[in-house]
């Protein structure tokens, strides 16, 4: 069966949800699933079934899906044993339920018998015209519906990234990064054994989903490589796809009569396939989220010319080194930009790119300089460094024995205001000019409550933990922009 957008809406925006196999035991998946749905603010109707009819979380349960009112639910979250599921799906379909998430194990991962059971499940679901996700998956998230139908944590902030993973644990990892970075998620699904629908089906839904701007996928293998490529290629025309592949290096050397055959290893073929399809492949889970968060929060650059703007210090120097390792261009400042900056900056400023502002001059210097640089036609993107230093000092003062006396309260508040202003200005300029402006500081990790970090996050942007990572990510954005540009997209 080819799932339709209606099937996915039944999964992601159900009118009501049934947890089949709800349990009163807090250690059971049937408890956790119900708990998470009810704890995270889902506004639709929630039903739970339990054969003994025991209360769960202070609410009565239904004896079976047969007791759910007709048309009251679109999604059933299945925690019952595999043997009970065919009857359950038939009963659910009779109630108008169009989607099932199957957390139950005992399918394709469980030997010959499990594979047979999985095949039967799929053909039954096809007959019932029902979307079945899983089995053996961890759940599904949909922030526009405040839906946290999963047997793991966390529940992420709302955002524009659509996630699908062949490992449920990496869905959790991605959502942990969503919480830490403040750049949120629209939908997420653990594909489990991907019996009826797999990664490509979700990517196609995300491409059409008005809640989703970027897709993020973890894959271990694709069953029909050629077909996967063709589908991926169509998805990337609509939205960027960030892809991380597990088991990339496990493919052994193959016997090949040709040199080409021995050079075209599994991993290089996969990598070339991604590049050809316009998908952005990265090597780590951490980088995957960072790149997806960047696609979700920054415009694509129109060119590769980067200006590095730094309040002071060696940051600019190492960032220049990082840029030299990429396809980005640390362009030379043109005369008109030099002259404009001379007017704003003290004579000791670098007069070069990276633009070292040498501490600035007045309380308005930093946002003014950033604005002049970002607005210049030669600038395609900005890496903005040295944010949060003053409010980091403010933190030491606030936590020290002299606070709030000796004028400390006023200066600490001033620094916080300034750092917030600098970073929110950067975010507003990026949006206004449609140019990426990436803020990088290790305070994102070492002091996440720093005013510059908070300002960046509250303005809806990702705060990079190092300039190196900002540059690597920007390079991938530029590569994708180039891919689109060369194909007239």
């Amino acid at each position: 069966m080819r799932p339709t957008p209606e099937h996915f809406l039944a999964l992601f925006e159900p009118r009501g949800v049934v947890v089949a196999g709800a349990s009163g035991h807090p250690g059971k998946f049937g408890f956790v699933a119900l708990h998470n749905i009810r704890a995270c603010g889902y506004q639709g109707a929630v039903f739970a079934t339990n054969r003994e009819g025991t209360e769960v979380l202070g609410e009565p349960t239904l004896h079976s899906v047969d007791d759910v009112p007709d048309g009251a639910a679109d999604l059933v979250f299945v925690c019952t044993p595999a043997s009970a599921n065919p009857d359950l799906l038939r009963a659910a379909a009779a109630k108008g339920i169009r989607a099932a998430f199957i957390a139950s194990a005992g399918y394709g991962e469980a030997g010959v018998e499990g594979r047979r059971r999985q095949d039967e499940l799929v053909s039954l679901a096809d007959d019932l015209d029902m979307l079945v996700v899983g089995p053996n998956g961890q759940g599904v998230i949909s922030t526009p519906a405040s839906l946290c139908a999963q047997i793991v944590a966390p529940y992420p902030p709302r955002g524009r990234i659509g996630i699908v993973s062949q490992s449920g644990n990496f869905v959790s990892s991605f959502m942990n990064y969503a919480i830490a970075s403040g750049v949120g998620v629209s939908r997420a699904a653990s594909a489990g054994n991907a019996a009826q629908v797999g990664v490509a089906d979700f990517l196609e839904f995300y491409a059409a989903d008005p809640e989703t701007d970027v897709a993020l996928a973890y894959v271990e293998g694709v069953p029909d490589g050629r077909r996967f490529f063709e589908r991926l290629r169509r998805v990337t025309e609509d939205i960027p796809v960030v892809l991380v592949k597990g088991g990339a290096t496990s493919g052994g050397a193959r016997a090949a009569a040709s040199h080409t055959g021995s050079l075209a290893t599994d991993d290089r073929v996969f990598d070339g396939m991604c590049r050809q399809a316009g998908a952005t492949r990265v090597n780590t889970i951490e980088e995957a989220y960072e790149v997806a968060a960047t696609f979700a929060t920054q415009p694509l650059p129109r060119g590769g010319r980067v200006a590095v703007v730094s309040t002071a210090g060696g940051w600019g120097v190492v960032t220049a080194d990082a840029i030299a390792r990429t396809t980005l261009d640390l362009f030379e400042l043109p005369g008109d930009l030099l002259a404009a900056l001379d007017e704003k900056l003290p004579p000791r400023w670098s007069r070069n790119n990276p633009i070292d502002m040498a501490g600035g001059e007045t309380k308005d210097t930093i946002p003014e300089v950033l604005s002049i640089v970002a607005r210049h036609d030669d600038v395609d993107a900005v890496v903005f460094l040295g944010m949060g230093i003053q409010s980091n000092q403010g933190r030491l003062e606030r936590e020290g024995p002299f606070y709030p006396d000796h004028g400390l309260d006023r200066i600490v508040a001033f620094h916080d205001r300034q750092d917030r202003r600098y970073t929110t200005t950067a975010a507003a300029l990026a949006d206004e000019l449609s140019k990426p402006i990436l803020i990088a500081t290790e305070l994102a990790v070492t002091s996440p409550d720093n005013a510059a970090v908070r300002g960046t996050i509250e303005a809806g942007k990702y705060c990079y933990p190092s300039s190196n990572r900002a540059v690597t990510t920007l390079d991938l954005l530029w590569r994708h922009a180039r891919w689109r540009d060369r194909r007239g997209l």
Partner: protein
Amino acid sequence: MSSDVAQMDGGPPPVRTRILSEADSKALLAAFGVPFPPEHQATNAATAVAAADALGYPVVVKLNGERIAHKTERGLVQLGLGDPEAVRRAADQLLAAATPDDGDVSLLIAPMLRANRELIAGLSHDPQFGMTVMVGIGGILAEAVADVAVRLVPIERVDAEDMLDELTFQRLLGEFRGEPAMDRDAVVDVLIALSCAAEAHTELVSADLNPVLLVDGAPVAVDALVEVMGEPAR
């Protein structure tokens, strides 16, 4: 020579493949626009010398046959032959070096090209994604360096351009030791030609253009090895 693409492990019978001779490999790929040097076939020393006289010296003489794959390793390539006597001697040696296992053989006589840079390009069948096309930095270190880019067949020009951009050793592709920069359009043409050949010849399993010399920046494939499905030559 033949190889088993699938493993012999009690599963389905392996796909049998055979290789084409260098001359036939080149003829197949040249039809799609892969640039090869002008080349003559000969069956004895006298016709080899006549061919070399026609081409002009120096020349290369190689042993050619449907069951000869790794000529260099077996010493079946003689380079830089500067006069008729050298060609005559090389032709006699190569024909004498042929073994009964090599089947029918002939001699290939080609002009001796000089270049400081080499690429490797080719086709290979991937079990998951089907036919792929590859380009990389060539030469004796090609497999150790492994600076290559791969795409799925068919490719468009823009894909081929991306492939060249993807290579790490870009400096080898620019102006180099007094030679002009690589003619990127011409190399793109080679990759497109490979892709078209793979589409047209579904029996194709792999193809090697190794090396592709950059002669004053222009690509010229001086060797080709095509592998197709089918029973090996007897």
